[in-house]
């Protein structure tokens, strides 16, 4: 394989821009998904009537449909009933719709895994429900959920690769466009793979490091 290094060098700035878009999308998607997940898992934990059913339905809908179809519906379908959103908002809303349910499940299993003894001890030393949640349940639940939260973050970052379907110029879409224009297939795809490695490998190491750091927050066994 003879690679055209000049071509690679010339297109670095384009890949840089696309990478920035991918990072921005992933950042908002992960942040908003975490917020949605935290809020929903707390509601599920306290079994708020009505809301609980709605959230369960949302989780099933979100987990059992593909992101591509969700995006198409948001971008092409919703304007027909008067809801217009930019490509960027569509992508962020779609990714959050998808990620929110995954994060909810991650937080929920973390909350469920906090040992009964912890909660009972908290109550017996006279903590209020709020204090119990803030100082006992959530910190431990968070540390238990970290591995799955991290896996979800990487999952969302990878899922951004399909936003090209609603004409955002992210890394994957850029590579596909360049192939269409210059037929430098190997070079374009090599840069694409390299770009994802640059994004995901450090993130994956960072998450493993965080996982090790927060493990001390667990008590009980």
């Amino acid at each position, binding site marked *: 394989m003879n690679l055209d290094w000049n071509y690679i060098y010339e297109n670095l700035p384009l890949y840089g821009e696309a990478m920035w878009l991918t990072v921005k999308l992933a950042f908002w998607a992960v942040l908003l998904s975490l917020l949605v997940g935290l809020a929903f898992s707390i509601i599920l934990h306290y079994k708020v009537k009505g809301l609980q059913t709605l959230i369960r339905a949302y989780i099933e*809908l979100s987990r059992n449909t593909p992101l591509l179809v969700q995006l198409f519906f948001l971008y092409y379908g919703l304007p*027909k009933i008067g809801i217009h959103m930019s490509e960027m908002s569509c992508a962020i809303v779609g990714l959050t719709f998808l990620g929110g349910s995954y994060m909810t499940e991650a937080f929920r299993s973390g909350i469920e895994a906090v040992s009964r003894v912890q909660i009972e001890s908290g109550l017996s030393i006279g903590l209020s429900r709020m204090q119990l949640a803030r100082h006992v349940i959530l910190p431990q639940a968070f540390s238990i959920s970290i591995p799955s939260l991290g896996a979800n973050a990487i999952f969302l970052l990878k899922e951004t690769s399909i936003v090209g*379907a609603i004409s955002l110029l992210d890394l994957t879409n850029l590579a596909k466009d360049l192939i269409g224009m210059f037929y430098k297939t190997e070079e374009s795809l090599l840069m694409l793979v390299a770009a994802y490695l640059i994004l995901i490998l450090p993130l994956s190491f960072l998450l493993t490091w965080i996982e090790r750091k927060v493990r001390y927050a667990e008590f009980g066994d």
Partner: protein
Amino acid sequence: MRNLGIEVLFQGSNFLRLLGGLLVTVEIAFVSILIGTVLGLLMGLLRTLKSGALRFILRLYLEAFRIIPILVWLYVVYFIFTPMMSVEISGELTAVLVFSLWGAAEMGDIVRGALESLPKHQLESAKALGLSSAQIYRHILIPQAIRRMLPGTINLATRMIKTTSLVVLIGVIEVVKVGQQIIELGVIKAPNASFWVYGFIFILFFLVCYPLSKLSKRFERRWQS
């Protein structure tokens, strides 16, 4: 609100065409799951062996699929291997190839996890009884591992069905593409078609994946108790 536009789903053979498109999606997913499961079983067994080099290579193989998005793999195979081998590989074949290899990697991990999660005394008791390696795998390890693998395997299947929606981006005519054709055709007569068509496809995927998710949850609960 005289004309909702939902009729577009039932005009002509639109309804059947969409279902036909869904069938293509499900077919690609099904074949890939089948091949992926068989390869994955083998890969999972290999990953429990003590060979360090083999473990490392298979781990690398898994990580390659975990780090690079599946859409990128579809593009890599579609744009590089097709011209390189100077044969016409269709989008369908590309999809089956990529999904099978991906499925094998993930399935291998599920199998490995299940085998390694079995209590050690099972293996030791079997050895103490004088069973051979092959007998241990056949009568002790594999039957027990299969129960632990079931929920994960079904989850992987739903993931693969959902991911199959991406094949529209490499030119396969499946349910999303059929939907696009219907929308384009009705641009004047049914201007709201995209809302109903994509909404309908959304529901179709849900109807396929939801029962599988439920099934997986049931197995999980049964195994826990």
